């Protein structure tokens, strides 16, 4: 085996691809050959390293130096300076670099390390290479399960880990699995909900792009636990790279006997199919997702029956989010007790947050449950961009809540946020600085809901339309004081009477915006 001096990792995800990652990669390889370094330096593709909005990103190991906004024109200089002469090219170094991976242990600056469970391999291994996943301990979980555990053991382990579903609602995963195992049925399905539609959320995409095998392993374990026969990954059609990578991962896993009949020579057989969504927000709701998966219009279904009793084609169906499933193999490998070592008492483990908006380093952060909003924004997110002050954050996507400056010390987990009438939701944190117009913010949120309402039930279909009319008037300073009350009244009716969580959750952004930023609204209306 050839021992190389330097590894250059190039992050290939949807974001960097759009910034021209392939061109940079080609230039890099050519330049390295040109400089005669091809025996000493190797260029490797990896998934997202968790930083967005900074163009093409390279990491050079063993130094662990991050370069951002790299263009093909920079490549000759970079290769010559860093790889040939050993002098890091300071003008491209990402100075605000948070410590994002577990690769090197030493502290390199102001920021604290991220405890990575879900994103352990992201930005480190080549996601398209199953061997790298296995080398990083992958598929040990399913092997352990098949050899040493019964289905009940698995469910008990997940239950005792305290893992809460990461899709947004925070329902205990173990309990869901327990229902699934107790539902009689000769055929049961596992669906991975990868229809990530919550605005500002892209964690599932980066998990899929960075470590698709982790998801497959999670689904395998879930399938084994509930006696499932088939798995489906329902994925957003726009996530083309995710689709490509998960499909390749499935083919590779199948070739290794990790999917299909008699997995690892056990009696367990399971296979996974990838299905693409067509871009409806409501299809992230599990019953609408199932309808869509069956080839029908994406309308939510009546509950009960819940999918766990009668889901896809009327069979018992377990629907779990990508991040939830990505936690499974680590819990199985390391045990529930280890997992409970992270997070809070009621909310164990870590959470992948997507920070965006007016922060210095937008991107993906995995931290323990219960980390304060302040820590996430100011330590991991590098604080507010351009030295401005923090005004508020929209937490949990469009269906989440606005939080004001006095909420900076709130602990971010499913249980705690509920006490403040907020929700962790998908874990998106949209940070806003002092210049942000909150009325405009709420306006764009409400326009989003109107556009995404499926039209099935009256309160959501027509409520969102009326809300948009009202907020448009308020934003244009054409409204009266009573219109604000009506805004709240409509969301209350929608919360009490909408068919599915889409309409029910509109109340969160509206009431929270009015709670923390009421003055801004009042200044736009006439009494």
């Amino acid at each position: 085996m050839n021992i190389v001096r330097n590894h250059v990792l190039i992050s290939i995800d949807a974001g960097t691809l759009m910034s021209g990652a392939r061109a940079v990669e080609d230039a890099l390889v050519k330049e390295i050959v040109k400089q005669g370094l091809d025996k000493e330096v190797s260029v490797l593709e990896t998934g997202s390293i968790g930083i967005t909005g900074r163009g093409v990103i390279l990491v050079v190991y063993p130094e662990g130096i991050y370069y951002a906004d790299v263009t093909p024109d920079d490549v000759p200089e970079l290769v010559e300076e860093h790889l040939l002469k050993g002098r890091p090219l300071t003008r491209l170094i990402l100075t605000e670099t948070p410590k994002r991976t577990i690769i090197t242990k030493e502290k390199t600056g102001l920021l604290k390390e991220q405890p990575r469970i879900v994103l352990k391999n992201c930005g480190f291994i080549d996601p398209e290479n199953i061997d790298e996943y296995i080398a990083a301990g992958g598929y040990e979980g399913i092997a352990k399960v098949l050899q040493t555990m019964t289905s009940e053991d698995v469910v008990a382990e997940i239950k005792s880990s305290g893992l809460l579903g990461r899709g947004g609602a925070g329902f205990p995963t173990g309990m869901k699995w327990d229902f699934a195992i107790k539902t009689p049925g000769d055929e049961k399905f596992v669906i991975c909900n990868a229809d990530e539609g919550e605005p500002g959320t892209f964690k599932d995409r980066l998990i899929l792009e960075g470590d698709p095998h982790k998801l497959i392993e999670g689904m395998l374990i879930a399938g084994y636990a509930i006696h499932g026969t088939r798995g489906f990954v329902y994925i957003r059609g726009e996530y083309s790279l995710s689709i490509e990578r998960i499909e390749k991962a499935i083919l590779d896993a199948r070739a290794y006997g990790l999917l299909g009949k008699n997995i690892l020579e056990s009696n367990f057989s399971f296979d996974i199919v990838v299905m693409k969504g067509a871009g409806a927000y409501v299809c992230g709701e599990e019953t609408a997702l199932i309808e869509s998966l069956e080839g029908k219009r994406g309308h939510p279904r009546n509950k009960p029956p819940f999918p766990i009793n009668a889901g896809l084609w009327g069979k018992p169906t377990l629907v779990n989010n990508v991040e939830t499933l990505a936690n499974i193999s680590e819990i199985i490998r390391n045990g529930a007790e280890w997992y409970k070592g992270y997070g809070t008492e009621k909310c164990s483990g870590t959470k992948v947050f997507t920070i965006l908006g007016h922060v210095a380093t937008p991107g993906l952060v995995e931290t323990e449950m219960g980390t304060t909003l302040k820590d996430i924004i100011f330590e991991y997110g590098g604080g507010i961009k351009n030295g401005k002050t923090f005004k508020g954050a929209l937490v949990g996507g469009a269906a989440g809540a606005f939080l004001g400056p006095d909420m900076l010390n709130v602990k971010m987990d499913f249980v705690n946020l509920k006490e403040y009438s907020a929700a962790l939701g998908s874990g998106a944190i949209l940070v806003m600085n002092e210049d942000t117009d909150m009325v405009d913010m709420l306006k764009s949120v409400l326009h989003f809901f109107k556009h995404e309402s499926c039209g099935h039930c009256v309160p959501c279909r027509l409520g969102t339309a009326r809300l948009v009319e009202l907020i448009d008037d308020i934003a244009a300073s054409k409204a009266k004081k009573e219109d604000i009350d009506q805004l709240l009244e409509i969301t209350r009716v929608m919360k009490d009477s909408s068919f599915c969580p889409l309409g029910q959750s509109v109340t969160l952004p509206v009431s929270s915006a009015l709670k923390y930023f009421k003055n801004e609204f009042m200044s736009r209306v006439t009494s």
Partner: protein
Amino acid sequence: MTKEKTIQITIDNKTIDARPNQTILQAAREYQIYIPSLCAMEHLSSYGACRLCVVEVDGLRGFPTSCTTPVEEGMVIRTDTAEVKGLRQEVLKLLLSEHPASCLFCTEQDECKQYMGTIRKVGATTGCRYCPNDHRCELQQIAENIGLTETSYPVYYRNFPVEKYDPFYDRDYNLCILCGRCVRVCNNVRLNGTLSFKQRGRVTTIGPAFDRSHIDAGCEFCGACVTACPTGALSVKVSKWYGRPEGQVATTCNYCSAGCRLILQTTKTDVIDALPDYDSAVEHGIICVKGRFGITEYVHSPLRYGTPKEMTPAGYNDISWEEAIAKAAGKLSGLKPDDCLIVVSPQLLTEDLFVAQQFIRQVTGSEEVASSFIFDLDGDAASFINLALASEPFETIEKAQGILAVGFDSTYGYSPIGVKAKQAAQAGASLMSLNSFESNLDLLSKIAFVVNSSRWADVLDLTMSRMSKGKAEKRFADLVEMWGSDLNKTCETFSCSSHNVLIVGPGIIDSPDRGKILRSIERMKNEYSWKVVVAHQYTNLAGMFAMGACPGIKPGEMIKEASADKAVVLKAELIHIDLRKKRKLIYLIGDASFDSLPECEFLIYQNALPPQCSRQPDLILPVSLFTEASGTVISAEGRVLQVKEAVAPYMDSKPDWWILKSIAEKMGKGKMKFNDVSSIQGEIKKIIKGFPAVKKRIEFKEIEVKGNVKTHGKGKPAAWKSSYRGIPLGEVVSGIKVIELKGG
């Protein structure tokens, strides 16, 4: 029947028994506890769109909708708390924010009702009657029940163009509330799939995918969607402005032999609409376009005869009934039996048929009770009759494992049979269709043979040969080449099944090769134990044979009392009607088969609408139609079904039986002392026990023909179109003309 387990629930402090699979709303409705709802409808799956049926349930969070929440033992439900009422009002306000609501919230409303209730093409204010559903609108009713008297939103008008380009009904989606009833009834009850939701959110509308017209999208115009619509969004073209009906009458459709039950909605003089009866045991509300939309226009056709008419050199003269009866009696007197031909329609009521056969036998002394079905079927009449009269009930199809439909299509007729076949196919039965054009069963069929009817017998023979694993004959070579492997698979399921059903449609009557086809069908029935269901257009064919309104068959002779009853032997010459011999007089009773008739000196035409022919009748006797008469029909299943007078006879028209008995009385012949329908029924009671209240299905003996049947040599009949009393529906009902043109 085992008694179902009940569970106890409490609604508004009242404890009631519910069944385990019921929703709260269903249980409440059974006990007449009112919960408002617009999207829930009996016979349709829960949908939960209107959110008006919210209630409070102890132990459940928030406000669950009663139409989607299943009952549980000990459930405590409150339907009328202040919170629930308030929530309903708010939801209804939202709903009405995009539904024109001037009929609800208008300060001028009272005056408007009083003075402006007209539609006039004059330069006067006539009130805003843009909604055809005013006063029969569920939404209006709900608004009243919920107690909404004002709204907090301006009403947004969506400005969709009103869709009027399809036949039978108009669609104004500005009035649509997206309750989804029409979509569900079209897809889940009718298994048709024309309607779906288009777009999403607030711009959602309803219609066929890809913006096709209904007719192009395969709409069967069964009107189930119109019946289901709670607002004025869907409205029947001919009756939309009639307002609230004044009465309704349950009756039986007379357009084919299926015997669908209908609910006729009426004003004092008019039949304004015909609705399905979902509780009917015959067709379960699955009626076709003819029954749903073909009645009003037919019975109120402007062409209808109102008085008797006599041909004079200067054209037709209106005459009185006395004159008309005297004229007919005079012409019929002194004729030898061979000189006159009396043709009786199989679409008359049983009572009329009974009187008609008495008239022919007692007044003219002839045995020649001619009928259009004998003309159509010619030499094959007996074998068709044997098949049709022994038709299995429609429910036989429900549990079939194999179904073969020959010459059958249920797009514009025979819906109860077609939908049952589709249901069975969806449940896993192997369906095979055989037709000369693409039928509406093809989509669900394992194999759809589209071949000329001259090959149907071959396909049937090939199927039988495959079922018994016989060798394929040479004449099947091309069929095997096209459908061989599919056919093998399907025949495999057929031969493994003990319950195969053959659906015989009217297509075989049209086929010049029906003799061959009928013989193959007989073999399938006798040698391969296929059960046969026959769909045909001769509404009261069974009544005809029960009443003996057929040459050589006495009243009641055909009715089977014991299974060992022997076949009725018929001499071949009896069922041969010579259509070449010139007659002195022809008397058409409810028939208009002019193409087949021989020449004659005098033609009496007893019907409701003028015939389409060059031979003008010499005497016209106007009859009342089935919406204006009472009596019975005996359906293809052998059920005795009631026909009830919904409105008074049109102008001076009279029932068939009255005209016949009056002529006989005038001639002083026969013993027909009938004053009303019940006196005729009293006479029929002697033949059929308990008539007309017969619960059991009537079974028939077989006919055995002795001797060779001569054909009347008039060639093949014209391709059959749906008709009533010899008049094609397409000539009278504008929409039927449109769909038949398209279907042709």
